[in-house]
């Protein structure tokens, strides 16, 4: 379900400026969705994938927040890449990420107070989300802003569809709801394991297994 919507979004981005999307650039967007997925292949950003995926709504907000932070941080760092002194580059990255996260946190608090209450702890932890730092180190420091933006989008969508898929099954089997609306009959007893991070761990493991066996990825 979530994969389809994501692919649609990606296509919409592609339409307006074709020349900007060479084959290489399209790969930047599509690779992280599957072959180079930050969660299932690189196994980054696991903590938040386990913690926020109890229900669809907070997960969606988390996905949007990570997308905003990752894309903006990638662009900012990439724009500054020629000025950043190598010796303090990690500090510069942290300052940029932390500032962006603080802004996202403040904006959420002002405009989506309910969700902020639920997520503020995890929003703060985006600062330490390995996907963000990982992309900054591995990509943004060596590439132009436009490429960095595509890379940021690709990776955050890769992150988003995985956590949304986990949240879908957790909310459905754990409480019989989707986006807070009951979809299973009242007789259905919620599965308590799915409500706890342990359930997410099992689901994530299964998901990693399926994806890796499908695209033949093997740890070296």
């Amino acid at each position, binding site marked *: 379900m979530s994969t389809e919507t994501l692919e649609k979004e990606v296509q919409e981005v592609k339409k307006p400026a074709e020349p900007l999307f060479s084959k290489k650039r399209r790969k930047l967007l599509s690779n992280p969705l599957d072959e180079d997925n930050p969660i299932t292949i690189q196994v980054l950003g696991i903590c938040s994938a386990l913690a926020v995926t109890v229900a669809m709504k907070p997960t969606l907000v988390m996905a949007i927040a990570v997308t905003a932070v990752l894309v903006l941080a990638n662009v900012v760092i990439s724009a500054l890449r020629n000025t950043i002194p190598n010796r303090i580059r990690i500090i510069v990255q942290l300052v940029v990420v932390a500032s962006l996260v603080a802004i996202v946190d403040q*904006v959420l608090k002002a405009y989506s107070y309910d969700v902020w209450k639920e997520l503020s702890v995890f929003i703060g932890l985006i600062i330490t989300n390995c996907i963000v730092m990982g992309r900054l180190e591995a990509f943004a420091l060596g590439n132009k802003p436009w490429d960095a933006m595509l890379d940021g989008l690709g990776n955050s969508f890769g992150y988003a569809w995985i956590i949304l898929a986990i949240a879908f099954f957790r909310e459905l089997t754990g409480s019989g709801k989707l986006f807070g609306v009951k979809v299973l009959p009242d007789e259905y007893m919620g599965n308590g394991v799915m*409500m706890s991070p342990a359930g997410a761990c099992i689901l994530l493991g299964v998901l990693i297994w399926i994806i890796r066996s499908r695209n033949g990825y093997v740890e070296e």
Partner: protein
Amino acid sequence: MLNKNSNNYIITYAVIMTLVFGSVLAVVAMVLKPKQDMEVLLEKQNFILKAALGEKAIGSMSDKEITTLYDETVVAQVIKSTGKVLETEEASVNVFKEYKKPKDTRELPVYIIYENKDKSKIISYVFPVYGKGLWDFIWGYVALESDLETISGVVFDHKGETPGLGARITDAEVQGRFKGKKIVDTLSGEMSIPYFEKGEGNDYSNNPQQVDGLSGATITAKGVSSMLDSYLTLYKPFILAQKNEY
């Protein structure tokens, strides 16, 4: 060409970076502050009215309607645990800060809900409560009917209770279990605060103090019970004084 590895460059870079990002953050925080304070206030008004009038009456209201209704029908007072009414403005009292003080020095806000804006008939009294759950603080509002004995509704909120277990205290269904319970023992007439029973799925509709418990969230449930007990005991002199008045 600047030497990017010289100490001067690095120090200047760090200073400028700090200034730029620092001021951006400060501006964002300042711009958003009024809106955030509004949200906090709105949530409080929402909770108070929800406790008094029920989820059904409040749930479909827009933010503006809630604020109007609150301004028209709610009168806030600040009292001491002796029952004495203070001059303090309700808006300046922070229940969390008061919770950390010794019980007899606490300033306690109480909210009196009138039927309509001419303020002739009281329909409910709402009392804030604060306590500890399993992982962090829990708080809420208890609304008593005008007889000052029957609970007309409660609202609970929490900071970090386990989702699906302790966090269920925010569910309307769980909060609804307190509706109609009494804070006074029917036989002795003494104060007796409703509490969560052990286990879940039992019928306590015949007992005015027992409330069906939360399976898997024993400590949060105990926290709620003791929060209600300690706070309603603090409000007792006020409640008795109000009872004598009417």
